[in-house]
C-alpha cells in the first residue's frame, strides 16, 4: 500500500490549522480532494461545516479560490461559474460545488437536479455526515434510522436514509462515485478521474462526524473503515452507467466476509436508543443495497 501513497500530489491546499472539530471526516476528505484536483480549481460552497473550515473573514485556511453561496443554490452557483468562465474564455478551470448532505439531499436537491439535467460541466461533491452538523446535529434525509439527533431527540429517526446516489444516477450523468476518507487513495483516484470527465460528476463521500455521531475524535478513520467493512458505506463508481466496486468494498465482495452491522452501530452514541427492530430494519436495508451493488457489478 505505501507505494500507492507516493503518487498522491504532495502539495497541500489546506493550510495548517482550521476551525473544524477534532477528528473531522470532512477535513480529511477535503485535503485529498484538493490534492487530486490540483491548480486551476474554483470552489463554490453553501453554508455548511465546509464554510467553517474555509475560515472567518478576513482569514482563510484554504489556498483555492472559493465563492460562498446560499444554502439552496450550490449547484446553480457552479452553473453560473461555468457559464461566466465560458463567456470569459476561461474553460480550463475545474468548477467544484461542495455541500453537506443537508445542502444536497434536502435544500439543494432542486438546483443540483437542474444542473445535472443540463449536463453542466462540473464536479458536485456531497460530504455526507448524515445530518445538519454545522447547526448542531439536526435530522436530515441522510440520517440513518435509529439515530438520535436534536430534532429526533426521544424517538430517534424513523426512516432509512435517502438513496441520493440512485437519484443522481437517474440523471444519466457520466460519472458518480462513493468514497470514504478512511480510504484516501481510493478517494483520490476517483477525483483524478472525475476531473478528466466532461459533464456533471456526482461524488458522495461518507464523512464521519465525532460530535454528531458521538464517538471519540481519534476513532474517525477506524469508524469510516467499519462503515465500509459492514457495507453501510460501499466504495464504488458508476461510469457511463457501469457500476464497479472499488478498493476495500471490491475485496469484501470477492471474499464475502462483510462484518455485521452491529459492530458499526455499537461504536456510536447516536444509536444508543436504537431498537432491535430498527437494527434489523437497517441491516436489511444494508443487505439489500449490498446485494444490488454486487449484482450490478457483475453485469
Amino acid at each position, binding site marked *: 500500500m505505501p507505494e500507492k501513497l507516493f503518487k498522491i500530489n504532495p502539495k497541500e491546499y489546506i493550510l495548517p490549522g482550521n476551525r473544524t472539530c477534532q477528528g473531522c471526516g470532512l477535513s480529511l476528505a477535503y485535503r485529498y480532494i484538493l490534492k487530486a484536483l490540483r*491548480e*486551476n*480549481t*474554483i470552489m*463554490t460552497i453553501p453554508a455548511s461545516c465546509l*464554510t*467553517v473550515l*474555509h*475560515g*472567518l*473573514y*478576513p*482569514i*482563510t485556511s*484554504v*489556498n*483555492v*479560490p*472559493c*465563492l*460562498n*453561496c*446560499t444554502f*439552496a*443554490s450550490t449547484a*446553480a*452557483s*457552479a*452553473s*453560473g*461559474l461555468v*457559464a*461566466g*468562465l*465560458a*463567456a*470569459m474564455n*476561461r474553460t480550463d478551470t475545474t468548477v467544484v460545488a461542495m455541500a453537506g448532505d443537508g445542502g444536497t439531499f434536502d435544500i439543494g436537491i*432542486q*438546483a443540483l*437536479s*437542474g444542473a445535472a*439535467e*443540463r449536463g453542466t460541466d462540473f464536479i458536485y461533491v456531497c460530504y455526507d455526515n448524515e445530518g445538519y452538523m454545522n447547526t448542531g446535529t439536526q435530522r436530515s434525509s441522510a440520517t440513518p434510522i435509529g439515530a438520535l439527533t436534536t430534532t429526533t431527540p426521544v424517538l430517534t429517526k424513523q426512516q432509512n436514509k435517502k438513496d441520493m446516489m440512485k437519484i443522481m444516477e437517474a440523471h444519466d450523468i457520466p460519472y458518480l462515485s462513493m468514497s470514504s476518507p478512511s480510504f484516501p487513495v481510493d478517494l483520490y483516484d476517483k477525483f483524478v478521474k472525475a476531473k478528466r470527465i466532461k459533464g456533471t460528476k456526482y461524488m458522495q463521500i461518507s464523512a464521519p462526524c465525532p460530535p454528531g455521531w458521538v464517538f471519540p475524535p481519534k476513532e474517525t478513520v477506524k469508524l469510516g473503515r467499519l462503515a465500509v467493512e459492514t457495507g453501510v458505506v460501499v466504495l464504488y463508481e458508476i461510469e457511463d452507467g457501469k457500476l464497479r466496486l472499488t478498493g476495500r468494498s471490491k475485496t469484501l465482495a470477492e471474499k464475502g466476509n462483510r462484518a455485521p452491522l452491529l459492530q458499526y452501530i455499537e461504536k456510536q452514541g447516536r444509536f444508543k436508543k436504537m431498537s432491535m427492530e430498527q437494527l434489523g430494519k437497517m441491516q436489511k436495508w444494508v443487505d439489500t443495497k449490498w446485494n444490488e451493488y454486487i449484482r450490478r457489478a457483475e453485469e
Partner: protein
Amino acid sequence: MPVRILTGNQAAAEAVKLCKVQVVSAYPITPSTSLTEYLAEWIERGVLKAEYVRVESEHSVMTVCVAASTVGARVFTSTSSHGLLYMHEQLHWAAGSRLPIVTCVINRGVGAPWSIFNDQQDSIAQRDTGWIQLYCRDNQEIIDTVIQAYRIAEQAYCPVMVCYDGFVLSHTMMPVEIPDADRVNGFLPPYKPHTILSQEAPRNINPVIFPNQRRDADGILRDGYMEFRWKLQHALEGARDVIVDVNREFAAAFGRDHGGMLWEHKLEDAEVCIVGIGSIASEATMAADILREEGIRAGVVGIRSYRPFPRAEIREALKKAPAIVIFEKNISYGYEGALCADIKAALYGTGVEAPVHNYIAGLGGRDVKAAELADAVRSSLADIAGGVRERQTWLNCVTE
C-alpha cells in the same frame, strides 16, 4: 437612428443585445417570458454571443447571475411577481456581493390569490434588498434605461432593477428609437469586476464575517459585518450622482433626457402636485392636462429612481406644493402606500405643510383611466378645501 414599433419586452431585449450581455439566465414567468424568449432565439442564432443558462427556478437564476458576474461576465435576467419573490434571498446576496447585475422586473401583482396582472407590489417589496430601482414610463424609456442601468451598475458596483409595468408596457407596442450600436459601445465601456477569482490570488468570497473588524494575516484591520453594510448604504446614496450623471451623458449622446432621479410635468405653477411611479405617473400627466383644461393647475412628479430615493429632488419639487396627491400600485399593509410614506418622510422638517392624499390604485390590473385620476384629484382638492389633510383611498375598489 431607426424607429421601430416594439413592445416593452422587445425594447428591453434590444437593449440587452446592444449592451453585449455575456450571460443570460432566466425562468419563465408571465409577463416577463417573451423578453427571455427573444434573447434565447438571438443567442441560439448567434446574433447575440452569450451563454444562456436555462435553470429550474428563479432562485437559481439569480444565483447564476451572481456567480457569472463574480468571474467577470456582464449578466442579465428578467422576472416578475413570484419569480422576483422567489429570488429574494439571492437579491440580498447579489447586492451584498456588490455585483453590477441588471434585472428587468416586469411588474405584476403578488398572490395569494393568483394574479397575472400588473401592479408594483413585487418590486416595491424588494425595496430593502440593496438594489437600485429604476422605473420606466414608456417603451423608449425601457430601452434607454436598460443601457443606462449597466453604466450605473458597473460604476456604482450595485445591482439595478429596471422596473416597468406588466402588459401596460411589456405587451403594448409603441414607436421606439433604437440607439446606434457604436454609440452604445462608446457609452458603455467593458465591465471590470472588482475581484477576480483566480489561483494566483485565491480568495474566499463572502465567507462568515464577525460583527467587529478583524485583522487579516498581514495584520491589517479589515471590515466587520457592519462596515460592509455601511458601504452598501453609502454606495446606494452615492448612486444618486451616478444616476443623474449617466442620464445627462446619455442625453448628450442620444438626445433623450428621461430625468435623473425623477421627472416633472407642468410643475412650475401647480396648485396640486400628483406623484406616481411608472406608467401610472405617465397616465397622471394626461389627468393633469385634463384638469388644466378645467382651470385646475395640476402638475406631476414621476419617480424614476425609487432606491436610492430622490430625497433632495422631492423636497425641491414639492417645496411650493399647496396639495399633494400620490397614486401608487402597491400597499404596505397596515400602513399606507410605500411611496406615500417615503415622500412624507422626505418632507419632514422642510416646512412643507401640504396635505397629502394617498390613492392605492390599479392593484392586480384593476383599470385606472386618466379621467378617473382627474376625478380623484378633484375629490381630494374638495376635501382639502374642507380641511382633510390625510386620506387613504382605494381607487375603483369596493371598500364597504
